[in-house]
């Protein structure tokens, strides 16, 4: 379903500060699999995740999603692809500060042209699943780190994505919430989603179908 061929990403090319974040990576991720990217800080996990998630473009190499070469896509086409197929969970949540919980969750549905009532209903049901039914109108600053991460997960799920990409999702939350998050991701996998997680957390190894360890921009 996802295939990467000879991916390279170089920052500051042809300068003193040239960094090869990702080097000649070949990767195939099957549909409905749970993949974990491990490795020390600076090993290129986030860069690789960003390229697979179409948030960044590789310097060389190609990425294919469902057989389509997405590296050749325009920015607009990539936005549409992300909107339809990919959900993101970030390490620092990336919630919009002034919006309430349900507004943050339903935000990705606005460019899809989904009416307000349906946006509210979808956000409400997801926040209830995340045990945040009583925090719908709270803004991110009124929520704890764990609650914010659950809002972020609900937001990642709101467009029913085929692929969920999570970058260090448990690094800013407590033990109990981490286990809940792990279970939620596992449930999503069983519902048919493909999960790609970059993490240091060893608990993910138990539920992962495949684990890739990165070092210096390469798979070990």
């Amino acid at each position, binding site marked *: 379903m996802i295939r990467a061929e000879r991916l390279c990403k170089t920052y500051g090319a042809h300068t003193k500060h040239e960094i090869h974040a990702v080097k000649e990576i070949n990767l195939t991720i099957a549909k409905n699999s749970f993949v974990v990217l491990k490795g020390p800080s600076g090993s290129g996990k986030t860069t690789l995740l960003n390229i697979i998630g179409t948030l960044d473009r590789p310097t060389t190499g190609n990425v294919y999603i469902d057989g389509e070469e997405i590296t050749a*896509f325009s*920015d607009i086409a990539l936005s549409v692809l992300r909107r339809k197929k990919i959900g993101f969970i970030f390490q620092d949540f990336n919630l919009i500060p002034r919006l309430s919980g349900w507004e943050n969750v339903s935000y990705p549905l606005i460019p899809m042209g989904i009416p307000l009532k349906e946006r509210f209903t979808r956000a409400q049901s997801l926040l209830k699943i995340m045990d945040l039914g009583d925090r719908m109108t709270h803004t991110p600053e009124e929520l704890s780190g764990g609650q914010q991460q659950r809002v972020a997960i609900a937001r990642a799920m709101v467009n029913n994505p085929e692929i969920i990409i999570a970058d260090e999702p448990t690094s800013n939350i407590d033990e109990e919430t981490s286990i809940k998050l792990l279970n939620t991701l596992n449930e999503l996998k069983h519902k048919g989603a493909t999960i790609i997680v970059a993490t240091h957390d060893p608990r993910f190894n138990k539920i992962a179908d495949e684990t890739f360890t990165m070092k210096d921009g390469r798979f070990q």
Partner: protein
Amino acid sequence: MILNIYTIIMLFIAVVSLSLGGFLLSATLKTILSFGTSVSSELKTKYEQKGYLIFLLACIVIFIRMLAWPWFYFMLQSFVIEIPGAMCIFGVTQILPVTVTFLQIIKPISFFFMGGWIFCYYVDKAHPTTPLTRKILLFLLPLCGLLFIDSGADIYYILFMKPLISVSCCATFFDVPLRPSAMIPQAVFGKNFDTPLFILYYSINIILIILLFLKLSEKGKLLMPLSDKIFLYIQSGIGLIAIPVTILSFIEIIAPKLMQLPFHHCLYCFIGNGMVPDAPLILGLFIIGLFSIGWMNILCLICKNSKTPQVTEIFVARINSLSAFCLLASLIMVTIHLVLT
């Protein structure tokens, strides 16, 4: 210079499009020169960001220039009361005749190519990999040239237009029984030319509309099993014949009948004097209908790319529908008028 709201707006449009056009030309040239024929994946975002602004600007300028064509006739109409002896736009066209004639030729040409560019841009935009960006940027260069000529001629005309001389009425030119103009087919067809011309007008337009509708339906494709290209060439050929036939039919038969002035053959009176209120719409629909056939040709020529056949086909089908609708609407409107007159 005749100063009224129409000239001020026209001057504003010309100055704005001239200045924005200059910026557009330099930005387009810079982008074409700074990026090679193939853009690497990493540079694609940067290329698109530059291209996005250029295309946005191009769409604004082109849209303004396209509106300048009908506005030009509004402006000419507004001059009628200012010029001694003028009864319609024809009188106005006798002052600075070379410039007016030039403007009347360059404006439809600009409109046609700019419309074609907009469709090409949308084909490119509709494809996820935007493979035609460079071609469309290159297509912008001659358009900028057209834009400068068109806007410059507008400014020249507005600044040097002075209602100092008395002009003749259109009746002295159009209503003379043996008119010396090359446009008049009496010399070719004799005095009873109107019946064959009228039949020709209807037959050509009906054939063209049928061909356009045939292209749209699956049954039609079975009835005429020709390749899309040949089909389009046939449509274009008939479309080219339809231009002089329709113009002559309007001058010789339709305009006098609809204006209920059997000896008055002035198209300017037909459009501008309000005797047939929907005359501009009738002609506008005919022009859009015919230009659409040309736009389909431009799409097939410029968007010929192994990556875009499906997207191009969808757009060609849409333009085909637009053409069929406009030509049919124009013909129906003329027919209703003729029946009711």
